[in-house]
């Protein structure tokens, strides 16, 4: 297998799933590791609308990043990061070796809504099949 992956086609914007194949988010941006002015690898996978907004730029991008940052419970600074060492597979999804619960920074809004809004509705925890 080739050790070279196109960032544009093989990594950016791909779906990230956890160990149980549950959706985690998208590869919204990448943080590169730079040594002496040369790119030596991927420092972090950035996910979430904040990272995406900052990548898109422009008015829409700023708005997206701003609202995502404000909607994020706990209000961490900067976009959500995932350690690239957790990645075990790139095709068809970017699969992680961890479970979503073990990544406390990821999908904060999802958890907050699950805890405070949707989870409070009757029957929200019941499967439909």
């Amino acid at each position, binding site marked *: 297998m080739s050790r070279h992956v196109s960032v544009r086609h093989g990594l950016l914007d791909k*779906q990230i799933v956890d160990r149980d194949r549950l959706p985690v988010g998208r590869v*919204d941006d990448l943080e590169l590791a730079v040594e002496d002015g040369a790119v030596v690898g991927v420092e972090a996978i950035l996910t979430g609308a904040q990272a995406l907004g900052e990548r898109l730029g422009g008015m829409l991008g700023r708005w997206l990043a701003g609202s995502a940052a404000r909607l994020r419970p706990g209000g961490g600074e900067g976009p959500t990061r995932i350690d690239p060492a957790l990645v075990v597979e790139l095709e068809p999804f970017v699969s992680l070796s961890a479970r979503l619960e073990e990544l406390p920074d990821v999908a904060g809004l999802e958890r907050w809504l*699950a805890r405070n809004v949707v989870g409070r*509705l009757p*029957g929200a925890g019941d499967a*439909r099949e």
Partner: protein
Amino acid sequence: MSKLFAFTLGTLSAIGGFIDIGDIVADAQVGARFGLRLAWVTLFSVAGIMCFAEMSGRIALKTQRPALALARSRLGPRYALFGLVGSFLVTGLLVMAELAGVALALELATSVHYLLWVPVAAVLVLAVIWLLPFAVMERLYGILGLAMLVYVVAVWQLGPDWSSVLDSATTLVPTAGESWGAYLFFVVVLIGAQMTPYEMFFFSSGAVESRWRPKDLVEMRVNVVVGFPLGGLLAVAIQAVAFLVFFERGIHVEHISQTALPVAVALGKVGLAIAILGIFAATFGATLETLLASGYDVAQYFGWSYGKLQPPVRASRFTTVVLLLLLGSTALALTTVDPITVTILAVVCSAVLLPFLFIPVLLVGNDREVMGDLANGRLSNAVGTTTIAVSVVVSLAALPLLVLTRAGAA
């Protein structure tokens, strides 16, 4: 047996997706003003939507991902965001229109003003989404939607002079007293109402939710080949009854109650009751489809967990988007804004967006790296490319026609 069941299921959902408030309104208006002179548009729409539903279904079988979810990694986040915002706005407007359609069907049945029924309809939609599994939900409104076949029966019952019907269907110019502008505007309206992109998204997301796999290819295709033409037949039947009852008398369709009237003329009270049931089921099903399709669009773009198969709490952002959209649509419907105006506006905007939403599907369908042996064949590409070419023209002409003809005013 389970095969047969799965088959009827998907077919019914294809009818449910095709016939919605936009269709019912547009077909009745067109029939009353142009007879069957625009029936050819439905023929084209059916071919186009079949092609793209099949393609997106095939993509879903092969990749276990809905077609539009792949569009972002393919065409970049900017293009996909444009498609997302556009289709969310249009489909969101349609949710409101469909919901008003459900309420109007209830008004027809009870003579209680539709605005009082809007909150009831919203609660009913919420209950069905919250309580029923995906498959049961599809089956429910699909089977009830078969009541729309009463329009086909009504055509026969009205005992038309078949040669004049055929004559109308094969004359491709505006009727006397109608301008080319209005004729072309209704071409756009019909295409927008019948080739709605949410049908494609819902079909492929449904295929993913039903866990279809490449071995289900034949079943998926049978659904497409039976479901959409049946929807098209119903659409032409609505045009035909409106032609037979309204056209000669010079009556224009301005209220949704009029769309059921020809059936009452042909089949009396029982026919009317069945037609109301059909309209209720079609708009109710379409409310569910537009609502869920909007949720799917957003969730897939951002990579959230989504879907009806898991408990709502496991897809809390998806659930929140769907609930907020239902709330917003209910509020919008309660502003007393005219549902028919909103419907026409929504389908025209939908027509503008068509090429932008079809192109990514065609690109992914052709990608052998992703699709392997299930990549598009010549037929898919020929029909798909033709459809896109026509939809580009329609997209460019839609807004100018809307303004110039003042929404097809007579």
